[in-house]
């Protein structure tokens, strides 16, 4: 068995105003894709930020390659994991290519300029995200979906072994939703990466994730292999929403029942 990229050890996320939640205890191994499911405010973003070391947990700890995440220098952390945020902030003018290139920051020394190789990495990432034609465009002129793909291209340029994605399909059209999750799937399976992603689409989560974490608003947590966790009763309780189930050759599909 390969070493864990990230290990959650008795991890309780810190959500202000919430009584202590359940502790999470599992490793994220290469080749695994963990999906976080839960209603708004359940703490999906907080968990991702805690896993990236941006927030301290209320209890327990996160181990990165076996060392306490908060003791690892930020630069080293950035070489091992990347996080795509839900929102993107562009206060100053910057081109699409420049924005993708910031992904190389953790690998460059203070006096280094980006090399031709870094530019190649960024351009390849833009091609993978269908953004090659927009390389010279100002970020502020991009549509929501294009901006989201650019955030993913920045992560591809950073190229860390662990990917943390906060609603990566946000703003994306159907084709790009599938394209992005296909890419995550391929990278996780073929490149032996690990991924943790917050998702809202249950069927996409069931299709692409090897493991799921169900996050309840009261702090309850439930995690395991997708086929063991993805049950309609659990999902109905999670979202307080009646669901209809269709068994198809591709697996179980769920959809919300209107008005119920």
């Amino acid at each position: 068995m390969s070493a864990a990229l990230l290990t959650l050890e008795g991890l309780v996320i810190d959500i202000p105003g919430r009584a202590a939640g359940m502790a999470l205890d599992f490793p994220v191994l290469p080749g695994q894709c963990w999906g976080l499911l839960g209603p708004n405010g359940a703490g999906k973003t907080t968990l991702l930020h805690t896993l990236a070391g941006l927030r301290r947990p209320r209890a327990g700890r996160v181990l990165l390659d076996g060392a306490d995440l908060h003791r690892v220098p930020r630069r080293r952390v950035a070489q091992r994991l990347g996080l795509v945020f839900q929102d993107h902030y562009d206060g100053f003018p910057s081109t699409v290519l420049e924005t993708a290139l910031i992904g190389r920051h953790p690998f460059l020394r203070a006096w280094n300029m980006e090399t031709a190789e870094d530019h190649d990495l960024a351009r390849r990432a833009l091609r993978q995200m269908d953004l090659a034609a927009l390389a010279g465009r100002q970020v502020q002129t991009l549509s929501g979906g294009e901006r989201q793909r650019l955030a993913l291209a920045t992560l591809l340029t950073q190229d860390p072994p662990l990917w943390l994605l906060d609603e990566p399909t946000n703003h994306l059209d159907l084709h790009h939703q599938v394209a992005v999750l296909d890419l995550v799937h391929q990278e996780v399976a073929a490149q032996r990466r690990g991924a943790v992603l917050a998702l809202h689409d249950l069927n996409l989560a069931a299709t692409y994730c090897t493991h799921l974490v169900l996050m309840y608003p009261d702090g309850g947590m439930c995690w395991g292999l997708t086929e063991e966790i993805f049950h309609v009763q659990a999902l109905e309780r999670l979202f307080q929403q009646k669901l209809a189930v269709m068994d198809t050759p591709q697996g179980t599909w769920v959809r919300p029942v209107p008005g119920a």
Partner: protein
Amino acid sequence: MTAALRPRPAHSPLMVLGTLGIVAALSVLTSVMLGSVPLSPGEVRAVFLGQGSDLARMLILDLRLPRTLAAFATGGLLAVAGALMQVLLRNPLADPYVLGISGGAAVGALLAMISGLGLAWVSGSAFAGALLSTLIVFGLAHGTGSWTPTRLLLTGVVVAAGWGAVITFLLAVRPSPELPGMLYWLMGDLAHARGNALPWLTLFVIIALALPLGRSLNVLARGPLQAAVLGVPVRRLEWTVYLLAALVTAVAVTTAGTIGFVGLIIPHMLRLVIGNDQRLLLPASALAGGILLTLADTLARTIIAPEQLPVGVITAMLGVPVFLFLLYRSRT
């Protein structure tokens, strides 16, 4: 391919800085030529070659050149201070004058002057004032998580008004024969700034310190969380930049009083042309700020000659419209 899709031409740093360097030299030349007794380029050249008449030598070497060099360095410092604060606050409206940092430095400097302390004390006291003001503004404007432009500007404006009141109070309780001079100095005046190496030294040091931070600042401009994820030690970098910006403002204020808006106009104009890469923007700001203040001071010396205007009046006339335009455009 439409215009919007065409990549913006890349600006080679050498070309940008070279062009600005040439314009800088021309602005200095203009400044030493113009005045109550205009000099020709030939006369200036003669003086620099160690010849020329006694009058021309005195005008250039004793009067105009020291003042011009002080103006240039001060303008560079103010522009760099503005550029640094804009990255810190992720807001193009940030400027040491608008945010009340200059006001704090002025109070500090004034207290030391009234107490009859020496130049080193004046500078140190100005730095303390600038630092205090920075802490107040940045501390209070930091609401829940991020700086909103409204909160930031309101804090800055109120703090600036407070310092203004303190200055008036100080001048009222300790009326001195130098009062008119002090008032001019507070409006931004280069008449007494000469033969002082401190602003130049600070300018070189700040550029040398800020350049290796350039790429980290580029990432910081995209928000503290994004920067942290990309490996920037955000807290440490922010404190470093706070200190540098306060130091630069303090030196500029001790040299030439509170000159407004240079830190606002220059980085904004440059960003339109060369983008927001701090590794180029900071040295370019230093040069362009120097050019702007050199020309503004030349104007201030000559426009109502033989009387002189405080140069702060000229920069305010240029800066206020730019500020209002930026504010108007950011109304979304």
